[in-house]
């Protein structure tokens, strides 16, 4: 497509999305009000209004909104490409995702039938009142969740990924011996260390990093003080793009909350708070089966975690509202997954009664609440916490549990992990295979959760700084390989799966940035 036309279409798409938004009406109002100002003259009306909007910071807000749209925008469509092609270009992956989804839905249906609990129904008035009163302490509730089980666990999903085959792929000859070492058999293009060094140049050995050069033993004047000053400026400028670039070298703890909110353009304006209240009303009005799955997940994972159990109530408040948020449905345009469909009151086939279940189209799995838990350290206001989480989900986390060929998708991350290990730690890989251990089976659970719950919180947040800074989940795969590299000596001595698991069981003492830096920039090539 001609570049000029592509650009025009992109601009038109963004305008259409921003038109009618709250920001649009705010800017219009500001423009009208500034007409009263003395320095706005009729002859140069356009320029004067423009420069007013610039100095008052509204132009920056608009820039941030446009920048956010660019993150989630679909590439301009060639006329013949159908919408499913934009979700996922490869046909066999779409089919695999569809059949995986069918399995999940069947499982949910049978759970509902077996337990006699409807997928969704209106709460009786008394129950609604009780829930409203108990909203801030839902954790004290001890409902009987023993009958509920998670719909699926990450290891079930791993089996599906392992079984993926391209029907057009010639695996008759030993064309690529490497493909027979590892579990992932799909030939996706993943980056090796030389390319990663170029792409992640801000992480190199000569650049200061939060997570390395802010260590207590290093004098703060060498890096930290100046870096924090720059960070404060970025926050004051309120520039999303600058915040994203800054975050590549990490965020100082005191500025992280503001920087992440800037990068994600997650404001906490009155309309956001209102939207959150609307979701809360949805939670109170209707009782969903997935609510029980969420309860169970929180109880099983976050509540058992030393770092996160204090946030139990927050997690309910965020995740239950998340399930009711139809704004999340938009992300299915670029997600290979499809929201489950149903009909109210059993009126199958009546399109007027067709609804999405749950309202946000996302069925939580075992460990889902761990996507939210680390954010509780940064934000204590429920609606702000909610907005940040939702934006992170629709930009990054959804890729960790859907089948797609995207470079940040879990499939690419798995393949990248295996390839990095095979290329740079071939002895270790061979040894583990010899004792019957596939490295991916050990690392998968880390990657699916983006390491949440496995690293200590401050280290996890440093990792997520880079996910936001580089707008990619690749660092997760790199870290997984780096952890194996770090523990390689111990792993070379193990002789069974159980001992390999034991070596890798506790990651809470790891410092992620030195590991990543050494793996990327100090590995002998």
């Amino acid at each position, binding site marked *: 497509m001609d570049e000029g036309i592509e650009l025009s279409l992109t601009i038109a798409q963004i305008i*259409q999305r921003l038109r009618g938004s709250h920001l649009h009406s705010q800017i219009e109002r500001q423009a009208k009000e500034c007409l009263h100002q003395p320095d706005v003259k009729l002859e140069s009306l356009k320029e004067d209004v423009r420069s007013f909007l610039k100095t008052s910071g509204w132009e920056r807000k608009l820039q941030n909104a446009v920048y956010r749209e660019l993150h989630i925008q679909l590439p301009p469509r060639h*006329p013949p490409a159908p919408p499913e092609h934009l979700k996922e270009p490869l046909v066999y992956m779409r089919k695999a995702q569809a059949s995986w989804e069918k399995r999940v839905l069947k499982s949910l249906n049978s759970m509902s039938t077996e337990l006699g609990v409807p997928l969704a129904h*209106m709460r009786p008035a008394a129950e609604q009142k009780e829930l409203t009163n108990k909203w801030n302490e839902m954790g004290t509730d001890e409902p009987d969740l023993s009958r509920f089980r998670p719909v699926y666990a990450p290891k079930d999903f791993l089996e599906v990924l392992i079984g993926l085959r391209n029907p057009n792929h*010639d695996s008759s000859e030993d064309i690529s011996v490497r493909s027979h070492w590892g579990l992932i058999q799909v030939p996706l*293009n993943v980056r090796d260390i030389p390319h990663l060094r170029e792409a992640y140049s801000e992480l190199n050995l000569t650049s200061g990093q939060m997570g390395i050069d802010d260590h207590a033993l290093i004098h703060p004047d060498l890096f930290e003080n100046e870096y924090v000053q720059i960070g404060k400026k970025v926050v004051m400028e309120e520039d999303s793009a600058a915040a994203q670039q800054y975050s590549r070298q990490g965020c100082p703890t005191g500025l992280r909350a503001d920087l992440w909110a800037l990068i994600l353009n997650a404001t906490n304006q009155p309309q956001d708070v209102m939207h959150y209240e609307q979701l809360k009303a949805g939670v109170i009005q209707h009782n969903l089966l997935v609510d029980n799955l969420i309860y169970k997940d929180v109880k099983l994972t976050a509540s058992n975690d030393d770092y996160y159990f204090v946030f139990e109530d927050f997690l309910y408040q965020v995740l239950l509202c998340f399930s*009711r948020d139809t704004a999340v449905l938009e992300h299915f345009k670029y997600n290979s997954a499809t929201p489950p469909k149903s009909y*109210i009151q059993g009126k199958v086939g009546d399109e007027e009664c067709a*609804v999405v279940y749950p*309202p946000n189209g996302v069925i939580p799995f075992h460990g889902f609440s761990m996507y939210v838990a680390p954010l509780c350290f940064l934000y204590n206001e429920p609606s702000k916490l909610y907005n940040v989480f939702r934006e992170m989900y629709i930009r990054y986390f959804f890729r960790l549990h859907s089948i797609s060929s995207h470079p940040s998708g879990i499939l690419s991350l798995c393949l990248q992990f295996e390839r990095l290990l095979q290329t740079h730690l071939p002895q270790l890989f061979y040894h583990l295979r010899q004792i019957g251990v596939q490295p991916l089976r050990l690392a998968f659970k880390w990657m699916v959760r983006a390491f949440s719950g496995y690293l200590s919180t401050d280290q996890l947040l440093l990792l997520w700084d880079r996910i936001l800074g580089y707008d990619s989940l690749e660092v997760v795969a790199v870290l997984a390989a780096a952890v194996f590299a770090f523990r390689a000596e111990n792993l070379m001595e193990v002789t069974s799966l159980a001992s390999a698991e034991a070596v890798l069981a506790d990651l809470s003492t790891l410092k992620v940035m030195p590991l990543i830096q050494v793996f990327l920039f100090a590995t002998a090539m």
Partner: protein
Amino acid sequence: MEAVKMMQTMSGTPDDTKPVNFTVKAPVYLQIGDAKADTAHSGVCVVDVNLPFGKPVNIEEVTFKNYYTAYVTVRLLRRNPKQEAPAKWCTAVRDLPLMDNPHTEGGSQDYYTIHRTQMQVEPDHVVCARLILRQPSLAWLTFSLEDIKIFPHTEPDPEKEVSDWLSDLTLTDQHPDLEGLPDPQTVSSSIQQMWALTEVMQTNQTTASIGRFDVDGCYDISLLSLT
């Protein structure tokens, strides 16, 4: 907005243009030497596109869906109607990469458009087109292009049914008092871009959602739909 109105009456939208009807011969996979034995995969495939006999086409764009082809070369057989010279083959596009890496999935099933502006020669008076597909990687069992369409270049329609008084009005708008007005040349050169803009904005609807997930307050669901 004058420029906008001018545009809308000028070129027809590519969506309305019908692709040319042509016959595509079966793709021929080339082998070295005597290729009776099916041992080696072929890395080169030739697809001949015969345009309707006696009706040479001026090509606007060629669209297709890729299926694991790494590079495509487009050659055209052109016959100049004015000259009596026989038709000549020329290369319009040489080795256009469709996949970033022939061994991996990137671009393998994507939709592509080759516009006349991307071609090295003017694709006018084309009698026959030949697409040469290359896939050097052994990773794939087969490769091809699907859904090949060729769109003809349409001259802009003249303004239809504009009554005299209306055309007088538009004429007066074009008084050459160019003080402060944009140069007509620059306006007409950016016309195609603005057309794209207005086509999308015409609906003028916001994409903000309302947020209700129930139907008239009811959200009683017993089973999920599996189809």
